[in-house]
């Protein structure tokens, strides 16, 4: 591959990249025979001949894509079009905090220490992450130094214009939040046409001592867009991190979400709402690794599956021998709306410490007929009644969203998804 010509061979991460290429070559793409991919087949995604490097640059007007932003609040924005940074849509900063580009962080000497310490340190060496490490060129780099509060949320948005027949994107984000700092990040991938896109995104997040990180992923892409998202979060003592994943669109979405608790009294939250139909497929693969004592983790995933949609939840809680007094909770609730929809769930607990409280619950069921009857007997049409129940079902997840505008946006998307016009925040 002529890849060597396209990137800076002297860059300090060159070694890391060459190693990653070897790892990927040794492993290849995962198949259904891999336990971790048992319920997700990549055949329909990998059949396209993706171009890895788009040939020409594309520009888009803000007004055309305004609706994909959380535009009613002031935010920093890092926007990419077909994998290339778009400066006129973005708003970055170096004022006290760094909100900028991965490519510049990888090359400029002043970021060297951080890159050496953090880049590719917690990402696993599985096939997709290695592929990303090898080929990724761009992404967001966010560094919040000690005792700083990011003054406004940060949006990371990836657009694909469809100028290529089929495009594969490899965004790579690095987020370092130092002691006592706080940041809120919103991430979105959006394709603007129906041409197939495969995004293989890797995000590494470091929440140091007492840091607070809130991360929101909005996944409402077109029907031919697929996303493999791998997010790794390393937490130090007393930090609080939460990731909310809202999956409504896309053809195949795979969320690998890994939390490593390297310190005491850490709090981790993993929540998600999935509402899909058609032939969509959403796979949540989570891991919470409790390494040290006195930590907590909360997982709550809700799924509603219609038409021929398939859902997968594969959650793993690992408690090390030293991680006494761990409190881990995991819930996965699902509703099947159609006979052709299916859900496969596998909530796992692996526990090596004795003084822990770990539980998981998992249900698959339908909307409550009595509740439906109650509403319909009071004049609420069937469709709206159903929508209300489904909204109520997913409300647990929404209630912990800290930015009200996101909550509003999500409820709007849910309403559209369910084909009703009611605003839920009645």
């Amino acid at each position, binding site marked *: 591959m002529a890849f060597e010509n396209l990137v800076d061979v002297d860059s300090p991460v060159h070694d890391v990249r060459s190693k990653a290429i070897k790892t990927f070559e040794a492993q290849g793409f995962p198949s259904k025979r891999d336990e971790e991919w048992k319920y997700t087949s990549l055949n329909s995604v990998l059949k396209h001949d993706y171009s890895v490097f788009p040939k020409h640059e594309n520009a888009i007007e803000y007004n055309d894509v305004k609706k994909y932003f959380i535009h009613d609040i002031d935010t920093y924005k890092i926007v990419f079009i077909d994998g290339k940074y778009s400066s006129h849509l973005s708003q970055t900063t170096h004022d006290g905090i760094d909100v900028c580009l991965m490519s510049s962080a990888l090359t400029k000497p002043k970021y060297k220490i951080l890159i050496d310490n953090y880049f590719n340190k917690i990402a696993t060496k599985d096939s997709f992450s290695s592929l990303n490490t090898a080929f990724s060129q761009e992404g967001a780099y966010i560094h919040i130094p000690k005792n700083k509060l990011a003054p406004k949320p940060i949006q990371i948005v990836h657009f694909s214009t469809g100028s290529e027949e089929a495009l594969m994107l490899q965004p790579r984000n690095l987020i370092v939040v130092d002691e006592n700092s706080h940041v809120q990040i919103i991430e979105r991938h959006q394709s603007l046409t129906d041409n197939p896109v495969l995004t293989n995104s890797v995000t590494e997040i470091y929440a140091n001592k007492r840091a607070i990180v809130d991360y929101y992923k909005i996944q409402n892409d077109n029907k031919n867009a697929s996303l493999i998202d791998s997010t790794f979060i390393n937490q130090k003592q007393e930090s609080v991190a939460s990731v909310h994943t809202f999956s409504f669109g896309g053809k195949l979405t795979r969320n690998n979400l890994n939390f490593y608790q390297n310190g005491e009294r850490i709090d981790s939250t993993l929540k998600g709402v999935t509402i899909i139909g058609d032939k969509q497929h959403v796979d949540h693969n989570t891991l919470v690794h409790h390494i040290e004592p006195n930590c907590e983790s909360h997982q709550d995933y809700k799924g509603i599956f219609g038409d021929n949609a398939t859902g997968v939840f594969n959650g793993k809680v690992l408690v090390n021998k030293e991680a006494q007094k761990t409190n881990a909770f995991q819930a996965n609730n*699902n509703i099947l709306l159609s006979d052709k929809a299916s859900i496969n769930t596998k909530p796992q*607990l692996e526990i090596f410490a004795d003084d*822990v409280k770990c539980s998981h*619950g*998992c249900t*698959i069921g339908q909307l409550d007929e009595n509740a439906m009857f109650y509403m319909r007997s009071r004049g609420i049409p069937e469709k709206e009644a159903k929508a209300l129940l489904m909204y109520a079902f997913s409300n647990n997840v929404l209630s912990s969203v800290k930015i009200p505008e996101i909550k509003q946006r999500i409820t709007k998307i849910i309403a559209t998804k369910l084909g009703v016009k009611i605003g839920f925040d009645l």
Partner: protein
Amino acid sequence: MNKYTEDDLREELKTKEYEYGFYTDIESDTFPIGLNEDIVRAISLKKEEPEWMTDWRLESFRAWQEMIEPEWANVNYIKPDFQAISYYSAPNSKPKYDSLDEVDPELLETFKKLGISIDEQKKLTGVAMDVVIDSVSVATTFKKTLNEKGIIFCSISEAIREHPELVKKYIGTVVPQRDNFYAALNSAVFSDGSFCYIPKGVRCPMELSTYFRINQAGTGQFERTLVIADQGSYVSYLEGCTAPSRDENQLHAAVVELIALDDAEIKYSTVQNWYPGNAEGKGGVFNFVTKRGICEKNAKISWTQVETGSAITWKYPSCILKGDNSVGEFYSIAVTNNYQQADTGTKMIHLGKNTKSTIISKGISAGKSQNSYRGLVQISSRADNARNFSQCDSLLMGNECGAHTFPYIEAKNKTAIIEHEATTSKIGEDQIFYCNQRGIDTEKAIALIVNGFSKDVLNKLPMEFAVEAQKLLEISLEGSVG
């Protein structure tokens, strides 16, 4: 119900490690080690089997040769060398017994040590027994009473000779020869096991029971059990196992097939107490068992198991709920101590409409053991109104053991209702404190709490077994309290 008090237990615990660890010197007829087609043929010949059975075994053997040992289970062990095992060992010159008086006195002595003095048990509990030592059935009791009802209860070798039509019709229908590595091996070399047929509409008047024991060194035990409950019948079946203490690892690869035809009910209970190895993890039985039942319309299969023995347990009693309105149940207590490893659970395959399944699994790990629950609940797209409830609780004692749950849930029908919950905890200090306060010492308190924890499952066992199981639980956990 427990006149055997904790004080007795304490006394007992002082003196014994694994009480069934004796070896009885019964002259036996053991095949040379190794496995090839000739051995398979020889076993078949020895059992005076018809040709179709020999062919069936050979077919399985060929299938087995092409298979590889599964490695997905959450257990670590050195794989047994299948060519270093003798595949047939039988107490010598097996006579036909008409009554117990004719049984070799040394054999009877063995039973006494097992605490299952057949004679006594026969009188006291009215349990019909089939005793299998080193994979050969040596005694079946109560045959006459059962015969009157038309119930066939005998060793599988006898069934192959006397009731070939039944065996031929059903064997391998639930667990096919190629099902998995150990099932294929078993199909090729099984030497004996129990066979039971309950005719239409008959309610079996007593508990049927099989006692398995590995006696000889260097032998594997491969027994095959086939239980057929014809339309509208009911049977409760018990199974118990022990083995002598040996430094080597012995292999036990059994296959159990249950067939519950329309409206029938089978209750299958196991108390598994194979030798678990010594405190350093040396020796012990490798227990690789395939158990599966199929339910036709309105039928019910209930598995109850108490697993305290074996160095490695790999066992997933399953139900295929094929008929509409059929019911599958699985109640399990798995206790691991020292270096034991258990990977056990169940599969509930819902195919028919209105099928129901319940899974209650209690895992207790102590010492340096690993205890995993692995289960599958599958609702096919045709299984309208399927219902499942699963509960997996784990109790950890000490911080060198592990408890794991791997539940797989696959639903393809929108009317399915599935609930799964799992918890992991340790014995609370407050619970112990509460008992201590009331004059119950810690050891007794633990026994009480463990008993309470396991009650849901113990209650499902037939009375006599429940007492034994309770005792077993306490013995297996002896010394694990820090």
